[in-house]
């Protein structure tokens, strides 16, 4: 496979090196056909996808337009306080009718022919359904056997936990708790332990790379201590930090758990600081960027990055917490939506601290801006030689939890799951 003949530069199917997943075919990132299959099998069937936080729709009638995979959906709180997710496609002529990104409504009306839906997505009004009376005669109207109950908006199944809302087009999907599994649930509940959340706002970026690369970025503890100078230099994430990598039983979700070590310049012997990105003499002009104050709910770890396959990443990096929503746009790009939040019982100081540390993250962040850049350039590499493959063999070729960071086992795990579901 490594030596292509002229006719194998653009293979039809991904070629793996045996049953393992340590060498991932570039084609997995470049094929439109595989991308559509991913949408069907991961985003639209058998999985829960992140749609938002309950704190974004606190009041009955509040809605937020968002996406599951490449399908536009509306997250809405009904008058009785219940949370619903409906697809943003009118049952009549298919118009994507909801254009505002958020707001408050009593009901939904498609502007085209004013078909009207309840917040739960039930069709409740069709203009001229019984025709129009003129000169003693009824003109037109819908057929007598037209049943509004059968012509509502597509309703998604909804699950909420700790203030986070997930949805699925698949009403046979397993319960959210089973989907996450006990290992991941523990880390999920650590962050979303039932405290009321306070919405800080959004950052949105379009990254010209395959959506899986963002999952892989946060399943890759190898790069932060090399690419991200701030992490290495200030000891926020370093290969010698006390850490743990864990997965659910099917290896699709993962958590990277790390406890901050010492910063500054330790012994020259220490390998992890003999990397070019470590800057012993780097000092902040304004140290408030890293005014870190430990919080009780951390229970030790200073950073826990949780990847929930396929749609979301949950971030705790010291005092900064956010969700990062993956919304694919074809095989070669995705929208990445950051929702930063705090907790309702935060002091004013803590709110300021979380907002200040947000400078490290997002599309311009001192740390995270790099990630989008390397993803874009990886995609460029894939596109030019789709017959080739990546190497994810740090720490071996197996898939297993680890008590250190010097391994790419989480990426191998994700592709073991990918191959199983994709049958590819």
């Amino acid at each position, binding site marked *: 496979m490594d030596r292509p003949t002229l006719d194998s530069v653009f293979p039809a199917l991904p070629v793996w090196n045996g049953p393992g997943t340590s060498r991932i075919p570039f084609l997995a990132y470049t094929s439109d056909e595989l991308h559509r299959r991913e949408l069907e099998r991961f985003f639209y069937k058998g999985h829960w996808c992140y749609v938002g936080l309950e704190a974004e729709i606190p009041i009955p009638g509040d809605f937020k337009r968002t996406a599951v995979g490449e399908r536009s959906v509306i997250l809405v709180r009904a008058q009785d306080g219940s949370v619903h997710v409906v697809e943003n496609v009118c049952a009549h002529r298919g118009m994507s009718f909801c254009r505002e990104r958020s707001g408050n409504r009593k009901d939904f009306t498609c502007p085209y022919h004013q078909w009207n839906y309840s917040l739960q997505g039930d069709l409740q009004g069709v203009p001229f359904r019984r025709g129009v009376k003129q000169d003693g005669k009824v003109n037109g109207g819908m057929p007598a056997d037209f049943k509004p109950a059968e012509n509502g908006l597509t309703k998604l199944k909804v699950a909420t936990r700790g203030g986070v809302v997930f949805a699925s087009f698949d009403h046979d999907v397993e319960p959210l708790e089973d989907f996450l599994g006990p290992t991941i649930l523990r880390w999920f509940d650590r962050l979303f332990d039932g405290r009321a959340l306070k919405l800080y706002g959004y950052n949105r970026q379009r990254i010209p790379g395959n959506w899986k690369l963002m999952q892989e970025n946060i399943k890759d503890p190898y790069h932060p201590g090399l*690419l991200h100078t701030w992490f290495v230099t200030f000891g926020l994430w370093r290969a010698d930090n006390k850490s743990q990598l864990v997965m659910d039983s099917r290896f699709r979700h993962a958590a990277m758990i790390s406890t901050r070590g010492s910063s500054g310049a330790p012994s020259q012997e220490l390998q992890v600081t003999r990397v070019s990105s470590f800057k012993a003499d780097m000092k*902040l002009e304004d140290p*408030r960027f890293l005014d870190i104050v430990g919080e009780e709910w951390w229970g030790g770890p200073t950073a826990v990055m949780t990847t929930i396959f396929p749609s979301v990443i949950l971030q705790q990096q010291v005092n900064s917490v956010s969700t990062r929503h993956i919304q694919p746009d074809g095989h070669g790009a995705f929208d990445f939506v950051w929702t930063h939040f705090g907790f309702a019982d935060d002091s004013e100081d803590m709110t300021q601290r979380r907002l200040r540390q947000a400078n490290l993250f997002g599309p311009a962040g001192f740390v995270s801006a790099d990630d989008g850049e390397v993803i874009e350039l990886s995609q460029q590499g894939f596109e030019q030689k789709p017959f080739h493959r990546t190497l994810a063999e740090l720490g071996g070729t197996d898939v297993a939890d680890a008590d250190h960071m010097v391994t790419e086992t989480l990426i191998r795990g994700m592709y073991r799951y990918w191959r199983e579901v994709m049958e590819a």
Partner: protein
Amino acid sequence: MIPIEFPAYCALLQLYADYAQAVDSGNWDLWPEFFVDDCSYRLVPRENHERGLPLATLSFESKGMLKDRVYGIRETLFHDPYYQRHVVGIPLVRASSEGRIESEANYAVFRTKLNELSTVFNVGRTLDVVVETPAGLKFESRTIVYDSEMIPNSIIYPI
């Protein structure tokens, strides 16, 4: 229309023009010097600004933080290199008093990556407080509210 003397308006125009020239020049050290020490620089999505949400894409609270950003651009942030070009509209003066002007201006930034076509990178307006100092006019605060719905991957250099 807020009355402002023509020489004062000329000085304001000069400040905007100099700023644009500086942030497009690639000499990043010039950038913090447009601000007073105790300054505010915020780059904010229009969505957050209009909904009163406090999150900014970047939020700096001192000249020191701007210098840290310069260090980041030069030394720590890996990025695909690009040129940027600001086109700034005529500033609108909202209020003025002795030694202090509140003004705003539309802007567009074009990005040109090596071997690529030039594209519209970021568009919006700046809400500014400008003060007179012994070293000339400086920004006390710049709140840059951008319309652009999606950041094309990342923003590295100062807007």
